[in-house]
């Protein structure tokens, strides 16, 4: 998050949020609103549209299979992946023979 967008996210204490709930809802239409309890974020109020979008992207990520992930890699890399060779050497063994 850039510093400018961070400035726009309003922080509320629980007491403030309780007293000004309609204001919190109105602001959440534009930006998520953080409600803090004892200096820790206790809840984030987001617009329904934002929540639905977040849920949709989470569901899409959960549906993605390994095959999908590697199809993306193949598009990015354009060639086989050269892996380091695993070596067989066990010095112990060689000295004994």
């Amino acid at each position, binding site marked *: 998050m850039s510093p400018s967008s961070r400035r726009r996210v309003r922080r509320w204490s629980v007491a403030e949020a309780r007293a000004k709930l309609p204001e919190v809802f109105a602001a959440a239409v534009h930006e998520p609103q953080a409600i803090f309890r004892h200096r820790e974020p206790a809840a984030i109020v987001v617009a329904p549209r934002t929540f639905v979008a977040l849920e949709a992207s989470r569901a899409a*990520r*959960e*549906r*993605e*299979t*390994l*095959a999908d*992930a*590697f199809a*993306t*890699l*193949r598009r*990015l*890399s354009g*060639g*086989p*992946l*050269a*892996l*380091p060779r*695993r*070596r*067989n*050497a*066990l010095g*112990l*063994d060689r000295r004994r023979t």
Partner: protein
Amino acid sequence: MTSPLVDTRVLAELAAPHPNAGVATWAAKTHRIALSVVTLEELAAGLARRSSPALAGWLDGFVARHCDVLDVTAPIARLAGTLRGQLAARRRTRPQADLLVVATAAHHGLVLVTRKVRELGGLGVSVLNPFS
């Protein structure tokens, strides 16, 4: 944790231009896997040879979305060394990396998905070869 532990060679096959059909079928129904840190190191090495930020970003996203990364802990190192020494005594030398991966699967009770079923079977882990 019930995700299978997948060895590096299987993932490298998926990165190939035309993956083996059996591996592709297995990957199309798999969402979550366990990875040894050994495999993470090898994948990072393979991708870093291309020096592309997009590939490094792909690895980070892949690990975050699909992988439980398992450390080589002291008990795992101990088991891997014991297995490697026992095999060497029978004149079956295996790479250190192979046995670290086997020991990780054994320690966590996971199925090991690998192409090396002949070499890595019979060491106390269930192995699955997805290659057709």
